[in-house]
């Protein structure tokens, strides 16, 4: 299940970010999404996040739990509320808004 990179942050901030990325095999979109996500996390959430990548081709039963329809889907488990971002995460602005890292209007 826990297939991919898992980086624990040092206890610098009270906020802990738990992210999950659902993919289906190593499709182009999935890989692109993973790359984009990693970049963003390193940039904005360094040492404050854990990322779990779930391949639904291997664990199809996990899709129902987080109500996954689209691939790829990024789920922000923590902090609550749960947020989902679908797509290859190519629009940085939108991802940041989606993750609540950035208010909608600046």
């Amino acid at each position, binding site marked *: 299940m826990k297939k991919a990179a898992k980086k624990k942050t040092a206890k610098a901030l009270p906020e802990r970010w738990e992210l999950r990325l659902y993919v289906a095999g190593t499709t182009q979109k999935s890989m692109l*999404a993973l790359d984009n996500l990693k970049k963003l996390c390193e940039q904005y959430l360094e040492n404050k996040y854990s990322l779990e990548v779930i391949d639904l081709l291997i664990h199809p039963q996990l899709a129902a739990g987080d109500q996954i329809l689209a691939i790829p889907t990024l789920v922000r488990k923590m902090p609550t509320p749960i947020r989902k971002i679908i797509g290859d995460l*190519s629009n940085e602005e*939108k991802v940041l808004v989606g993750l609540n890292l950035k208010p909608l209007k600046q």
Partner: protein
Amino acid sequence: MAIKKPTPANKAVEKVPTGITGLDEITEGGLPKGRPTLICGTPGVGKSLFGLEFILKGALLYNEPGVIITFEERPEDLSMNVASLGYDLNKLESKKAISIDYVRVERSEIEETGEYDLEGLFIRLGYAIDSIGAKRILLDTIENLFAGLSNEGILRAELRRLFSWLKEKGITAVITAEKGNGSLTRQGLEEYVSDCVILLDHRVANQVSTRRLRVVKYRGSIHGTNEYPFMIDETGISVLPITSLQLNNEVSSKRVSSGIPELDRMLGGKGFYQGSTILVSGTAGTGKTSIAATFADESCKRREKCLYFAFEESPQQIIRNMRSIGIDLQKHVDAGLLRFQASRPTLYGLEMHLVNIHKNIDAFKPKTIVLDPITNLINAGLLSDVKSILLRLIDFIQSEGITTMFTALNLNSSMYEQTDEGVSSLVDAWLTIRDIESNGERNRGLYIMKSRGMQHSNQVREFLITNNGVKLEDVYIGADGILTGSAREAQQLAEATGLELRTHALNRKDREVDRKRRVLEAAISSLREEFESVRDELNKTYLEEDLRKQITEKNRAALSQKRSNRSIDVKNK
């Protein structure tokens, strides 16, 4: 596979039965096997139930496991909804007969960036299908995806992929969709699912709502194209393929008694044909229900089950009223031979009544049916509808070989009128009861307007309701017209008096004649005596004369003898 032109005969479309009552008849076998079927309709028409029944019946009756993918209702709600229909989803799920997956799409939770596809949904479907080896799947309602995801381009492409994927997997799918304005579905799903489309409809006419079903298209198969009413009740959906009318019902030449011996005599002495339809019409209060109850009673006495549809009175009321004329229906009810099915005509639409009647007949399997009265059904629909319903009903009943009695109210009392429902041409026998009003009283006259296939009396009979059931009496037809009631009784009395008087008079005359004869005979005998004495007198003189003559002759002879002797002596001398 899908785009293939329908080729006749050699490769017919394989079908899977839905198990929904009546639908498999309309579609001649069920839904296309291994292909998606679209069920569309307005909200609340029963799309989800349709799909659920398809899955559940498949799992229970046909041993085909099914997957339920719900986009609207949570599994808990779902199992609660179908629990009222007697299905236990949890049990079925634990037996791996079905699998339920709830797909929730919440727009507010989802942010879209860039390219994506619905592989996640495919994986979930595939997982659910593979885990139980499903043959059927329900997607209820997939259009909800359009509300949750904004990229319609991707969505449409993915839906197209989904349906062809399902086809490839050979899964028989039912997809529900809301009806759109001017199109079958709001999102144009019919574009993707084009093998079989079934439209459900819910219409209200005269404040009565009726659900109807129509097979809009069915690629590669013939199907009923009409709108068929369907009903949702505690047993689920039942559709009525009622217009598949063919006039080839089996007929019986067995006769059944009407329960009124005099009426049987009017009908060639034996009563109605078994499996025939009998209409009893008449104005208000002429005793139609009494005839119907007598008929039902007679049927139960033959140990034949009877189903009594009451549209006017409650069963208790009928039982009480019939007890007053000496018919005990309660004991038949207790014995399970008679069942009442009372409902207000306005309770639901005509089609519903028909479906309801259908279901009850199927469940109870009666030999005779009474519908009392059909007139009230008019309240539930238009006249033409009533006629077509009754036509279908009569056809159905006859195909089952059930003897049926309808009662109908005539609004005016013209003799040759049609019944209001215009069914008189459809029935096999038609009795009409008419009020005959004369001498300040109202009496009932019963006519047999028609009775197919048997000799029947053309005479009017007076119809009496007595403490011991109903009876028929001959009416008197005199110079003043038909005599009924007390006039008839007076006439009978007068005739009896006349008879008495006549016999009395006859007796007196006989005695007079006798007496005269005796006087004459006495006179004759005295005359004869007189004659005897006259004759004797006459004879006496005659004899005397004769005697004297004889003696004279004798004397004379003797004298002449003497004389001749003397002369001889002389000669000899």
